[in-house]
């Protein structure tokens, strides 16, 4: 193995010299404690290494040893339900083996080596196999069938095949011959994390990722295979929103990357997800979740790698034909890790100390999202939802700005909304989704033909309400004419009764598309009827006094998804209320006349 001697140490960046045999991005072991690192620069016989573990105590003249492999992820059964660090070390087994603190210099195979899996082998001797084909199946959890794929670079004829049975991850299942070459296929494969896994074709995004969050699904929908950013200052609820999406979105599999965030938040996921039940399948959410955790006090270079480890796992499951959603919380910490490493390597900085390649790294990452036809001709997708933590909540900073160039969905979290405890604090005026057009047909066919029309109407009302709120701040609500006060009241219904959604409430945490549609339909119906009466001269106080206004405000909580017919009843009640009001008012007018 290639070896070099350390002569320069600055935090997580180390330089060594003495060999020209190292590969770019090769994984290396650094020093006597055998810390894990990666080669990031080669210059003559000098190599620069970023070390994925703390370098305290490391000395000059200690050795760096090559491993001959690129920084890679091990992909196979046992990933689901697991929690891994930025370079895919299993944190649960690390804790069992080495205690409560993250120990340096230890390597553990990410997949449980001793565990036996019941494998159904689909290929026999004499069959030919091609890249991406499924050659065996394992029911990994009750929700996910793990399909073992022929690696992208492998094809040929099966010369040996094991029967169905129980196997460990490292057991050979098939032997493939391609000309002179014989390639064994095990239950796992390796893939270099910095390279996107190949696909046959991209497919246009025309399916929504249904999240059960009203402000997202109804106003700013995301397509399967799309990319979205959630920027927001601290305390605006980025993480709660990410957790909500991880819990409720209708992806087959979730990869959740806690990148430079709080330890207690990962713990919360670990405690909560096994208890929570997927509304579609009735199974525990943990059975479709993979966690990658690099908390803010874990080594900064592993934070840089965690994003790639996560997306590689997501692509692997996409290649099996699954719709995968990846949450990265937060991509700003990843960008800052790049900045820190770049600074230690004494590179020339661009904006605010970030390296000039920040943009290309961001675009490479977000472009790994997509809906695709896999090598084997199946359909799968990777959807990326990246949280962004702009310093001071200022969206003009480099990471937010550059991220905007590569995502088509922007859910801007707003500190003022968060201060008034309006959650999710997605600002409906500054957010946008470019998928609205792509998904229009789907919503009209699958939910209701008037979906898009109602969306436009509701959005116009919210805009009008915002304009009126500016006036109210100056002169108070009482002086507005009643038509405008009605807009303000309906604005309140939309904001409190529809946009606000309580993630801690059992009824409201997830809202089906049907319920979303009926709610908005009802609110707009209320608006149209009320406007009619007000144009005839009725006072707004008459309309607000009735029992229906507070009921509309509370329908999100009062009416569970399972009893949607209650919304129909509520609609009848609204109808009756306005009919009676109109009748009474008509009589009143006649008397006066």
């Amino acid at each position, binding site marked *: 193995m290639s070896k070099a001697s350390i*002569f*320069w*140490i*600055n*935090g997580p960046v180390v330089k060594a010299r003495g060999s020209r045999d190292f590969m770019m991005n090769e994984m290396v072991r650094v020093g006597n404690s055998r810390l894990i690192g990666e080669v990031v620069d080669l210059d003559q016989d000098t190599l620069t290494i970023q070390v994925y573990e*703390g*370098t*305290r*105590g*490391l*000395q*000059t*003249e200690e050795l760096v040893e090559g491993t001959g492999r690129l920084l890679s992820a091990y992909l196979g059964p046992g990933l689901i339900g697991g*929690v891994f660090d930025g370079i895919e070390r299993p*944190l*649960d087994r*690390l*804790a069992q083996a080495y*205690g*409560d*603190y*993250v120990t*340096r210099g230890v390597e553990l195979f990410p997949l449980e080596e001793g565990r036996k899996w019941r494998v159904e082998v689909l290929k026999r001797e004499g069959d030919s196999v091609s890249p991406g084909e499924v050659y065996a199946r394992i029911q990994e959890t009750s929700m996910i069938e793990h399909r073992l794929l022929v690696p992208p670079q492998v094809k040929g004829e099966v010369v040996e095949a094991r029967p169905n049975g129980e196997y460990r991850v490292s057991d050979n299942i098939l032997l493939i011959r391609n000309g002179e070459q014989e390639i064994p296929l095990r239950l796992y494969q390796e893939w270099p994390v910095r390279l996107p896994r190949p696909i046959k074709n991209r497919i246009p995004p025309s399916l929504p990722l249904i999240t059960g969050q009203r402000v997202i699904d109804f106003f700013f929908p995301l397509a399967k295979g799309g990319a979205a950013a959630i920027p927001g*200052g*601290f*305390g605006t609820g980025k993480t709660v929103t990410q957790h909500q999406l991880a819990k409720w979105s209708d992806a087959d599999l979730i990869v959740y990357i*806690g990148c*430079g965030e*709080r*330890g*207690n938040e*990962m*713990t*919360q996921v*670990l*405690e909560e997800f096994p208890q929570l039940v997927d509304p579609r399948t009735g199974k525990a959410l943990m059975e479709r979740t993979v966690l990658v*955790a690099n*908390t*803010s*006090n*874990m080594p*900064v270079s592993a934070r840089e790698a965690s994003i790639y480890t996560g997306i590689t796992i997501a692509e692997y499951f996409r290649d099996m034909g699954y719709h995968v959603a990846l949450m990265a919380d937060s991509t700003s910490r990843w960008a*800052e890790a790049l*900045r*820190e490493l770049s*600074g230690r390597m004494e590179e020339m*900085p661009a904006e*605010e*100390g970030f390296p000039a390649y920040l943009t290309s790294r961001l675009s490479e990452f977000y472009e790994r999202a997509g809906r695709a036809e896999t090598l084997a001709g199946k359909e799968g997708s990777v959807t990326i939802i990246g949280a962004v*933590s702009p*310093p*001071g*909540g*200022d969206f003009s900073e480099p990471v937010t700005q550059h991220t905007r160039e590569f995502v088509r969905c922007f859910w801007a979290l707003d500190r003022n909304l968060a*201060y*008034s*405890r309006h959650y999710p604090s997605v600002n409906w005026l500054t957010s946008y989704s470019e998928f609205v057009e792509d998904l229009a047909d789907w919503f009209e066919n699958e939910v209701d033909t008037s979906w898009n029309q109602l969306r436009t109407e509701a959005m116009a009302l919210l805009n009008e309400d915002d304009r009126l709120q500016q006036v109210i*701040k100056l002169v*108070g609500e009482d002086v507005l004419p009643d038509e405008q006060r009605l807009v303000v009241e309906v604005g309140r219904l939309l904001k409190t009764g529809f946009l606000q959604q309580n993630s*801690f409430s059992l009824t409201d945490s997830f809202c089906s598309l049907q319920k979303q549609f009926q709610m908005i339909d009802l609110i707009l119906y209320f608006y149209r009827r009320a406007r009619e009466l007000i144009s005839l001269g009725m006072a707004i106080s008459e309309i607000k006094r009735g029992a229906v206004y507070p009921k509309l405000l509370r329908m999100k909580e009062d009416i569970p998804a399972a009893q949607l017919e209650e919304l129909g009843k509520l609609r009848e009640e609204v109808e009756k209320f306005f009919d009676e009001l109109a009748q009474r008012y008509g009589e009143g007018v006649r008397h006066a006349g």
Partner: protein
Amino acid sequence: MPVREYLGLSRIYGPLVVVKGVEKVGYEELVEVVLRGEKRLGQVVFLEEDQAVIQVFEGTAGLTQADARVRFLGRPVEISLSQEVIGRVFDGLGRPIDQEGEVIEDVRRDVYGEAINPYTREYPRNFIQTGISAIDGMATLIRGQKLPIFSGAGLPHNRLVVQITRQAKIAGGEKFVVVFCGIGLKHDEAEFIQSSFEETGAMKNVVMVLNLADDPSVERITTPQVALTIAEYLAFDQDMHVLAILTDMTNYCETLREISNYRGEVPARKGYPGYMYSDLASIYERTGMIKGRKGSLTQIPVVTMPNDDITHPIPDLTGYITEGQIVLGRELHRQGIYPPISILPSLSRLMKDGIGEGFTRPDHPNLASQLFASYGQAQNVRSLASIIGEEELSEADRNYLDFARKFESQFINQDFSEERSMEETLNLGWAMLAQLPPSELNRVTREEINQFLQR
């Protein structure tokens, strides 16, 4: 690792010195710089070829290039620990400064610690009573939480943390200790803090780690880490519930910037180094609870916001790491309200899981939410009143103004020596709500109104 000694420094700049011709030196290794019998401690911060750059904790004033000897001690910065640390006072490097002699050593620990494996953490779920209504009622402190105080120059944050130190307790009478860490404290502040602990007898449950404003600023780099190493030991080795108070983290960050600047690093925002987030996280994330261990470590760092700007990098990065914040407001302070806690921007993220049924009182979550909403509404009314005048307000709006005045002067306001139990705080909250007509109370249930609201 043997001790190696070298004579002479090749460069001295700011708090840093360079030694040439060294061999087998470890990164972040502890170093003694000796000049004419006087020892100063330092740490290796950069290695290149046979050169080591050392940051000297006690400053470089008076060092000469030729005569200084540098001894590499072959170990990281460590401190001695045992249960005896309780009631003692240490400097920023963990050396006793209270004339009570050395601590008898049970274990030695590297002051920088290791990261807790997220898998072994336990989610924090029980509260600490501070005896201060605005905190206990509205932004409850949870065991294992890191909840900073965002303050400004001239605001009484030090009085507040002293009061918290004296009053903080947990239900059930388990062992509770405060580690009080002063970073760059002014002499009179330190004097006030120490004497008020001694007068009230609180000192017997306090460990103090003190770095004063005129102590060498480099020592501030280790000060919070020393305090947290002590706190971790008491929490996770000795099964105690520990509250660590760090005041003032702004001074820590200034030192970080100073050293980064000397080292010629590329700055991020406002001259602070790009790694300040990770660096602060290595302090704040030492908080928490660990599965299977009885103790807990809770942190209240104090951050004074330069120019009261919450978007300044120090409060900003802190807020991204910590689990909420308690914000002090100048407006309230000017009105003579103590503690001047601004309710609306203050938030305890972990509060929802550690209050209510089984912890404080079942009505607590709804009560806090109602007080918050009503006070928020009152602020809207206030800004309207400042434009159109109070006389023009509706009856309902005037109720809100009365509520806000009373809430500030009776609920938030309390005496420096006044300790309120959780029960008293909650009852007081209900008394405030009595200012408002019941029709305005939509976040509490009718049963709660009947049970607790007295008119």
